[in-house]
């Protein structure tokens, strides 16, 4: 009794300590932001990442633009998640207490980093009159929200990880931890999705190479936990509904968290070279250990020691071995043609893509360790390896949800797939007949497949809504639109998931446009014409500007489409005073069909005329629309279900039906 009381009081003390930790870290983050906003150049971090002329929002963004600040930001977000978790402890006090303990362990690691390795409050010996400024690539409005979104995703994964590990340590009965963490995982996944797409949008608008995804190691680092979290979100349904794949799920969430830590390591350590150009530092040793044999740029110690990643892995492995009998499956697979097996193949492919990207990202390190030189693994490798798997995944997106749990009959398959398959075939043949795909190559073939499979998936989703709506329509005696709305409100998770799948289809269609990109580079003297696709660009003038933050050069170009004036574009290049670094600001004319994307490539010193590169990128807008649909669908899936509505059967009909069956209405005794 007394032991229980002491335990309860200790748990409450720990809970309050966690809340106090949030308050302390929040205060520290506020202090750093205040120092940046007030140009306090006695703080070394402010000197390195801000300057007087920097606009206010970017001074605020300085909090996460450097190594030390970003680690503090990690701490802040982790403690904020912990704070919310501890406020909601009544959902299950014992499990939340154990999960909080795991979170506290992670928090301690990052606090050690902030205090002893990457201190953001280091002071200057002499106070300079101005700072070095923010990296020009980060001086873009989206950069104020992209890193927080991504970090919210990375850090958010820690919560389901903590619950998963805590449930394993406690041998927690049932699937409650899955129910509790479902929303946490979805929120983390949503932030990751949004963060990654904002990064892509930023790259498209700032990096000036005309694309949104370059398979850069830092981009890959954010994509890896997204892929494994997606696999986890699907496979937990098998555990919830059928009590299967418990070992798989626990290891998936462990892997997802370890990948998010690996992402932080790759971004911050300089292990791999990246256009995002983060400096090399010794912080990698804290994450990955120091063994002196695996391409470690931080290697310094004569002895080997493990890092945070190895410790996490060892802890997970230890408790898995100790309590693995607790994770025994409760059911067996009854048929290969079932929802369960579709989830298994979905997981296999998602993890296959994860593994392929991980191999490609880490292969230069492996090559350096074994062969003594770092080879480059770029976009062609990743495209070759991942596109076929991605298309097959897209196919499963359409097929999986239509298969029933346990087993699916041939009749059901025929009923569900005939119309979508016919529609997909019509689209495929129609696209060939339209001549869009003339001059076939592999890229165009993949693009064509994306359209065909996308149609199949969109049609299966639409048929799911329609058939469900029709069942409810007859029960509720209402119209199909209202019936579909109620169908969705009754199972927000399922139908929100379908909306997410639809968003993925739209995103794939957007990516399929890459096969049709065109580009042209030309010197643009006044009156010179550059023709690309339907567009004609006519050079007007070359301008220069100078302000406190940067000097800029720009070309003014009039854009005509099929001979008709459309707009004026001014692609620009800026040179920032504080850092001396250049930045490209492309000019765009976007429509749903295509983007005209113009880059100021430089000035021909001999003639004094600007050189511009113009690109026509088809369907890019659909990528952003797809992401918005995915975000909307995830939001829907997070909304609780509405209570079922009683069917509105006319009273006379109901009474007659009951009399016919010799029954009484509910609550009336014979």
């Amino acid at each position, binding site marked *: 009794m007394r032991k229980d009381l002491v335990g309860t009081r200790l748990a409450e003390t720990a809970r309050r300590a966690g809340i106090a930790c949030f308050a302390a870290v929040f205060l520290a983050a506020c202090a750093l932001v205040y120092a940046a906003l007030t140009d306090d150049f006695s703080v070394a971090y402010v000197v390195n990442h801000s300057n007087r002329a920097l606009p206010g929002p970017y001074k605020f963004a300085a909090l996460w633009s450097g190594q030390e600040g970003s680690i503090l930001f990690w701490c802040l977000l982790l403690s904020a998640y912990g704070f919310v978790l501890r406020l909601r402890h009544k959902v299950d006090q014992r499990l939340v207490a154990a999960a909080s303990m795991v979170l506290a362990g992670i928090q301690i690691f990052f606090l050690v980093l902030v205090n002893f390795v990457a201190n953001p409050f280091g002071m200057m010996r002499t106070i300079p009159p101005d700072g070095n400024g923010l990296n020009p690539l980060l001086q873009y409005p989206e950069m104020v929200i992209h890193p927080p979104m991504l970090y919210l995703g990375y850090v958010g994964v820690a919560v389901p990880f903590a619950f998963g590990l805590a449930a394993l340590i406690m041998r927690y009965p049932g699937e409650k931890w899955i129910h509790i963490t479902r929303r946490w995982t979805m929120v983390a996944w949503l932030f990751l999705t949004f963060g990654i797409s904002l990064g892509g949008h930023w790259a498209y608008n700032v990096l000036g190479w005309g694309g949104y995804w370059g398979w850069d190691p830092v981009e890959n680092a954010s994509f890896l936990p997204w892929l494994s979290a997606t696999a986890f979100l699907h496979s937990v349904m098998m555990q919830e509904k059928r009590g299967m794949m418990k070992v798989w799920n626990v290891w998936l969430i462990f892997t997802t968290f370890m990948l998010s830590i690996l992402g932080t390591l790759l971004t911050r350590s300089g292990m791999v070279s990246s256009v995002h150009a983060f400096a090399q530092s010794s912080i990698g040793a804290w994450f990955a250990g120091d063994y002196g044999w695996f391409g470690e740029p931080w290697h310094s110690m004569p002895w080997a020691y493990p890092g945070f990643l190895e410790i996490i892995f060892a802890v997970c492995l230890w408790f898995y071995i100790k309590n693995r009998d607790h994770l025994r499956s409760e*059911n067996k697979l009854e048929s290969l043609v079932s929802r369960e097996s579709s989830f298994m193949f979905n997981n296999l492919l998602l993890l296959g893509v994860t593994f392929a990207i991980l*191999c490609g990202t880490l*292969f230069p390190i492996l090559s350096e360790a074994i062969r003594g030189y770092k*080879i*480059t*693994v770029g976009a062609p*490798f990743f495209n070759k390896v991942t596109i076929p798997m991605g298309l097959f995944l897209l196919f499963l997106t359409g097929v999986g949800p239509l298969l029933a749990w346990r087993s699916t009959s041939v009749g059901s398959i025929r009923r569900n797939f005939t119309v979508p398959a016919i529609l*997909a075939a019509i689209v495929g043949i129609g696209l060939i007949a339209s001549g869009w795909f003339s001059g*076939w190559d592999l890229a165009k073939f993949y693009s064509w497949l994306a359209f065909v499979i996308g149609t199949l998936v969109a049609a299966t989703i639409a048929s799911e809504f329609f058939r469900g709506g029709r069942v409810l329509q007859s029960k509720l005696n209402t119209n199909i639109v209202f019936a579909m709305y109620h169908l969705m409100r009754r199972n927000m998770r399922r139908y929100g998931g379908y909306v997410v799948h639809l968003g993925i289809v739209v995103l794939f269609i957007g990516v399929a446009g890459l096969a049709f990109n065109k580009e042209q580079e030309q010197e643009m003297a006044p009156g010179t014409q550059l023709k690309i696709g339907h567009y004609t660009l006519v050079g007007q003038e070359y301008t220069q500007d100078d302000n406190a933050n940067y000097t800029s050069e720009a070309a003014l170009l009039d854009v005509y489409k099929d001979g008709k004036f459309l707009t004026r574009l001014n692609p620009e290049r800026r040179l920032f005073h504080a850092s001396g670094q250049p930045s490209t600001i492309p000019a765009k004319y976007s429509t749903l069909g295509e983007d005209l994307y113009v880059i100021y*490539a430089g000035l021909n010193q001999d003639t004094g005329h600007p050189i511009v590169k113009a690109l026509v990128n088809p369907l890019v807008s659909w990528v952003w629309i797809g992401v918005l649909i995915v975000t909307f669908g995830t939001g829907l899936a997070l909304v609780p279900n509405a209570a079922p509505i009683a069917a509105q059967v006319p009273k006379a009909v109901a009474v007659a039906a009951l009399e016919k069956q010799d029954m009484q209405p509910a609550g009336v005794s014979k």
Partner: protein
Amino acid sequence: MKQLVRLLLLPCMVLLFMGADNQEARFQNLGGKIMCTCSCEQMLLKCNHVGCPNSARMISELRTNVQNTSNDEAVLNWFRKKWGVTAVVEPSTHGFELMAWVLPVAGLGLGLLLVIVLIRNWKLRTAPVASADIHLNPELEALRARAHRETEI
């Protein structure tokens, strides 16, 4: 059903064997596999520096190689030899670099094997673990079947 599958597969098979084999397509394709060595970390044909010390020369070398050599791998090897292995962003298909191509396929194959073993074990299991001590209630089973019918459309 079979006819429908054939109808879907036919264009795929036809298209698989149709490859554009013109010089410009090869130039663009290879240009996307070679990195500019000026440290801009961009693909050769995407490097947008004016006054870049390397890209113009490399692009002209690529054009000459595409005209003189019909083997793409030979062109890439020429660039590896002249500009170093880091100039080509696609690992070679022989020697140590072959491992980069083999690893993802091997990983996927291993995963597939794991899934097959897992499914086989499940199929071989005689009875569900949880159902052993559950006394089936016919009324409850009927309700469950109805719920299953109405929710699994």
